[in-house]
């Protein structure tokens, strides 16, 4: 009787150990099903580097599964676009040496450019001043770069103000006194000549 009692205790302990192990397994499998990419990109810590060191940093990240964050000073202009990705071109020079970098972190239309969809991305392009040096945030994963943020893009109000200033300057340049003319066409614009 005493022996069968101790066998029972051993059995209970054994079963409870198995139970704990299988519960842990279930928890692990749930966390594994969460895409690592999406988890990582939101928690990247960025470091400021010279533009010329992007390539070195990409190479260093190539065989890892961690996200690195780089900040470079660069001129920005619109890049190419395909069905899944929108690109920005960046360079440390105003007119040359531009590199095409995607703003999506994969090939399936999952845009991570400040969480902008394709239409919003086009709206961002409208605000880029190609003569201005921006702080460009680049996420690097397995040696591939993705632009996640361009700091200092004009606000909607600034874009509108710039547009209004351009129109005012254009109107000013095309101002003329009809009395000074012997003849002029209806939409005469002196600044054109």
């Amino acid at each position, binding site marked *: 009787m005493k022996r069968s009692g101790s066998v029972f205790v051993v059995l209970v302990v054994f079963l409870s150990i198995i139970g704990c192990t299988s519960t842990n397994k279930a928890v692990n499998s749930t966390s594994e099903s969460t895409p690592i990419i999406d988890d990582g990109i939101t928690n990247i810590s960025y470091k400021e580097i010279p533009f010329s060191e992007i390539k070195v940093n990409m190479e260093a990240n190539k065989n890892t599964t961690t996200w690195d964050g780089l900040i470079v000073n660069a001129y920005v202009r619109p890049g190419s676009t395909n069905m899944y990705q929108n690109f920005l071109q960046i360079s440390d020079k105003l007119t040359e040496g531009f590199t095409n970098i995607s703003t999506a972190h994969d090939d399936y239309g999952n845009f991570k450019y400040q969480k902008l969809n394709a239409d919003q991305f086009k709206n961002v392009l409208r605000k880029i001043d190609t003569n201005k040096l921006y702080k460009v945030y680049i996420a690097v994963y397995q040696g591939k770069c993705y632009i996640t943020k361009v700091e200092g893009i004009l606000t909607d109000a600034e874009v509108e103000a710039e547009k209004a200033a351009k129109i005012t300057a254009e109107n000013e340049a095309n101002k*003329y006194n009809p009395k*000074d*003319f*012997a*003849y*002029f*066409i209806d939409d*005469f614009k*002196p600044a*054109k*000549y």
Partner: protein
Amino acid sequence: MTKYYASNVVFISQDGMDINFKTSDNAISQYFTIGGRTNLKFGQTVKIYYYVTKNPLTKWVIEAVEFTKGAN
């Protein structure tokens, strides 16, 4: 291809939509097409705003004629 210019010239004559100007040194004279009357007088110095286009023949078209300040 259309190019736009502005030049100081001297008025010679106008006959309907054809108007003739020359340079002040008499080196070049050129007929232009114009869309209205100018009432300019022979020898009057003016600034013309015009374009030249090839489509396929070359056309010289006046878009404005400005009185030259201080001249005439």
